[in-house]
């Protein structure tokens, strides 16, 4: 095969090109030809096709994502906003924290172990590229029905992949979610979050400037794995009629990534790096075009210097390869030698593959012949933008009209029936203990884990002298979002925000992973538009800007899309981690208070799913001012030692929260139903803006005075006591019986 050089492209304008096979639409191919004033070379076509894919260019979502910037609340904490590898937030004492949640959904369905493993690898490199030491990971996961045979293939592989990669990397896995729903059967969601910590002065950005500075590729050799991963996998719907796409999934090597982390932190420490970018989706195409377009000049790359695993790879394949564990750094010439020395110390292969030029083009050579000559911005940023049509689905009204009223769904009528419902919910796969999964992850490594699963949030100490810490929670309820995507997205934010505050930390910033079906379906696009609008509005009110995230579209099989699933991560800061509030009831005699208002809100609730397999009506109402007030009370009470335990109320309502807090602390509780509430609504409603707290007797007056003064309803509902959960006048269930129902569920299904 002859090499398709720029010269050759100019001479053969009519040569047929596989633009459609590479995922480009006809008008997109035409635009590439217009930009270049000729047909692209094979290598150029490869670059444009991956960089203009849905996954890399956000072409369907961009117009909606804009709101996160336009409606961003004023926040002094933001140091780096949307657009870089990850946002950076000031947490005080000279520290900055960066965090981001991303999807690796499609690869994880094709090849669960490697798909999930490389999802961790990719998000960790994003965080590393900002200049931070990664300190923790989390995995929000969604699977099909827990008893479906394919879930047995997908879940154990994904869990083993997350553990296999993350454990070997030495990053504690401190939280996340596991949700089962038949809507995710052919499209499991594997989102991965990483948190990193640095000092303000250590922030690094992805840009190449200064003519003559060297471009160094370091890390693993480039192989044939993952070629076209983003364009082929993440930008298209699965379809039985096409051949298997397994070769498009990358294979990870966590040992190599661990060396890459230590090596990168050392070159940062010695201030050897001007700009840096990790190689993830779209590999070198992405790294070179993004570095060059963010910098001041052009870039020249000698592609044949790239170390290969497979000597037969073509220039197109090298540019598209998504081989893992690689980074690209811009280094001044007099610092190259030291940079290479440090890489050698860590047994990391490093190669100067090019340099920054004072031109405006990204030029790539293959054995001396020019094969790419493009304006880098046109590859990295000037991709197509679509105004996809969207419309409220015709079925939305009927879905919302099917409310779970007492006449529509039979409710428990007496104590025995309430007890049965409580045990059914606590023992359902979504509400049951996830220990079988989370015990496969190392949550202790690095020695700074203050809170981890099954607490409301994961909390990490970042300074051993001052006890400064950060916490993160991720939440998302696809059932709520299906009923009303605007409210559903706001509820996801509200829950994560509340979870962070329940642990005692002040919420500061948001990262989101927006998992939806095909953008070519107007119903799905409406869900997406509504969810982004809802999230942006809520972030504005709560004062927590979106710092970055990821969109995953095409999560659908045939015509059937997943529930719209915006997963929201909230980052918080706590000045003194010794003041953190755990969920467990540990001290007998402490009084329990229910904070917030409880209404008859069962739409999309765990009870309707578990007991009636029903989804209809409206999700709980959102009151963001109330969420903010609740958070302020929880944080103040934690800081001033007024509460010993706090648990947010969400899936399964108060009933589930009591079960979890009793089991976690190893203490029972006696609870009284307030006179104005129906026992069933009291126990199973999922009204937002609520938490249950355990207050030491000595603090009771101070605590209730504070709530009264601030106008937060605080109802005394009982006392921590004994070895049973008793709802007076209704039922009593022993901790042993609760343990029996709540634990062992997942391993019985999937172990």
């Amino acid at each position, binding site marked *: 095969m002859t090499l398709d050089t720029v010269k050759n492209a100019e001479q053969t304008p009519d040569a047929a090109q596989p633009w459609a096979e590479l995922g480009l639409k006809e008008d997109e191919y035409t635009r590439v030809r217009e930009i270049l004033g000729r047909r692209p070379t094979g290598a150029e076509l490869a670059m444009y096709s991956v960089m203009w894919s849905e996954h890399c260019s956000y072409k369907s979502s961009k117009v909606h994502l804009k709101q996160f910037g336009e409606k961003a609340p004023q926040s002094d904490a933001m140091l780096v906003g949307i657009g870089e590898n990850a946002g950076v937030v000031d947490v005080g004492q000279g520290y900055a924290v960066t965090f981001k949640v991303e999807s690796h959904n499609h690869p994880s369905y094709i090849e669960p172990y490697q798909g999930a493993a490389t999802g961790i690898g990719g998000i960790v490199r994003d965080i590393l590229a900002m200049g931070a030491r990664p300190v923790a990971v989390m995995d929000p996961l969604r699977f099909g029905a827990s008893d479906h045979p394919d879930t047995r293939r997908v879940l154990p592989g994904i869990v083993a992949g997350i553990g296999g990669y993350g454990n070997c990397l030495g990053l504690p896995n401190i939280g996340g979610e596991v949700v089962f729903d038949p809507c995710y059967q052919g499209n499991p969601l594997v989102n991965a979050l990483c948190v990193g910590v640095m000092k303000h002065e250590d922030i690094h950005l992805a840009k190449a400037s200064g003519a003559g500075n060297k471009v160094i590729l370091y890390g693993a050799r480039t192989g044939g794995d993952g070629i076209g991963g983003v364009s082929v996998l993440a930008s298209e719907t699965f379809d039985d009629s096409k051949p298997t796409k397994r070769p498009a999934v990358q294979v990870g090597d966590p*040992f190599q990534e*661990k060396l890459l982390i230590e090596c990168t932190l050392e070159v940062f420490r010695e201030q050897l790096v001007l700009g840096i970018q990790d190689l993830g989706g779209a590999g070198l195409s992405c790294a070179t075009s993004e570095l060059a377009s963010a910098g001041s000049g052009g870039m020249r790359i000698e592609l044949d210097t790239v170390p290969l695993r497979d000597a037969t790879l073509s220039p197109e394949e090298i540019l598209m390869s998504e081989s893992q564990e690689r980074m690209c750094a811009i280094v001044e010439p007099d610092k190259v030698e030291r940079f290479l020395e440090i890489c050698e110390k860590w047994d990391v292969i490093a190669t100067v593959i090019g340099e920054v030029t004072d031109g405006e083009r990204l030029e790539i050579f293959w054995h001396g012949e020019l094969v790419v000559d493009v304006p880098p911005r046109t590859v990295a940023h000037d991709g197509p933008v679509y105004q996809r049509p969207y419309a409220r689905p015709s079925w939305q009204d009927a879905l919302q009209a099917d409310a779970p009223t007492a006449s529509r769904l039979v409710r428990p009528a007496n104590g025995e029936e309430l007890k049965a419902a409580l045990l059914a919910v606590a023992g359902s796969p979504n509400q049951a203990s996830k220990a079988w999964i989370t015990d*496969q992850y*190392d949550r*202790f*490594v690095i020695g700074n884990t203050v809170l981890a699963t099954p607490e409301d949030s994961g909390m990490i100490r970042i300074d051993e002298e001052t006890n400064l810490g950060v916490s993160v929670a991720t939440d998302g309820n696809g059932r709520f979002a299906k009923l009303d995507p605007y409210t559903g997205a706001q509820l996801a934010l509200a829950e994560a925000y509340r979870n962070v505050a329940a642990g005692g930390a002040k919420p500061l910033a948001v990262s989101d992973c927006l998992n939806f079906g095909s953008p070519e379906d107007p119903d799905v696009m409406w869900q997406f538009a509504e969810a982004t609008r809802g999230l942006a509005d809520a972030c504005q009110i709560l004062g927590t800007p979106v710092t970055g995230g990821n969109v995953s579209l095409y999560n659908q099989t045939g015509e059937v899309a997943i529930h719209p699933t915006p997963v929201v991560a909230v980052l918080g800061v706590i000045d003194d*981690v010794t003041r953190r509030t755990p969920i467990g009831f540990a001290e007998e005699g402490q009084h329990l208070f229910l904070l917030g208002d409880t209404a008859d809100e069962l739409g999309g609730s765990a009870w309707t799913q578990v007991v009636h397999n029903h989804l209809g009506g409206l999700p709980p109402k959102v009151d963001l001012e109330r969420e903010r007030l609740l958070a302020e009370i929880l944080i103040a009470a934690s800081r001033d030692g007024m509460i010993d335990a706090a648990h947010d109320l969400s899936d399964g309502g108060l009933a589930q929260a009591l079960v979890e807090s009793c089991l976690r602390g190893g203490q029972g509780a006696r609870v009284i139903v307030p006179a104005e509430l129906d026992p069933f609504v009291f126990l199973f409603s999922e009204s937002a803006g609520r938490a249950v707290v355990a207050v030491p007797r000595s603090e009771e007056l101070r605590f209730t005075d504070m709530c009264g003064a601030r106008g937060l309803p605080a109802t005394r509902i009982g006392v921590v006591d004994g070895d049973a959960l008793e709802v007076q006048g209704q039922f009593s269930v022993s901790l042993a019986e609760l343990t029996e129902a709540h634990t062992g569920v997942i391993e019985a299904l999937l172990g």
Partner: protein
Amino acid sequence: MTSRVGVVTFPGSLDDRDAQRAIRLAGAEPVALWHRDKDLHQVDAVVLPGGFSYGDYLRAGAISRFSPVMATIIEQAKLGMPVLGICNGFQVLTESHLLPGAMLRNNHLHFICRDQKLRVENATTAWTTDYQAGQEISVPLKNMDGRYTADARTIDELESEGRVVFRYLASGPNEVGNPNGSINDIAGITNAAGNVVGLMPHPEHAVEPLVGTGGTDGLGFFTSVLKQLVSS
């Protein structure tokens, strides 16, 4: 003078900084040792930390035992220097033949991370004098290849000579105490001289009330060796 305790960093070591913290909290001076450097920099004792050295490729610990630093450590251990191998470090010690036996994949084939109850069976080694024989302690456990095994003669020898230092215990009626199928519930062992100890659980993650499992039962490992170094 403060005692100096070295912590080796192999490529892929993960709990090296945690071991350093535990040494510091116990009152000694932690010294970072590098796998390529044969020099032990005048340390009085060595900890081989947990992690996945060399990615556990080939076999856990199998590549690390050939690193330059191990040659010196093997030599010094034979002369009586206290050496503690935690998790991956224990695997390196068996691969180095400083301790007998080997670790197999956990019998359930999963990585397991949990708070693990142990009984201290031997409180006379360099690393366990601050415990009482029979004392029960809780420390985190986290590994994939933690199932201790050895031939019957070795096991008899270890048992009859009191060289089983820690045994797994159940923490409650619902828990299986042995987390991985180890022979005789063995969690850790020592050499005949008592200066080399290896165990799968992680005492360095149980040294502060706030983090990890929130206990300090692991601190005794590091205070024990410190006392031994001060008195010798």
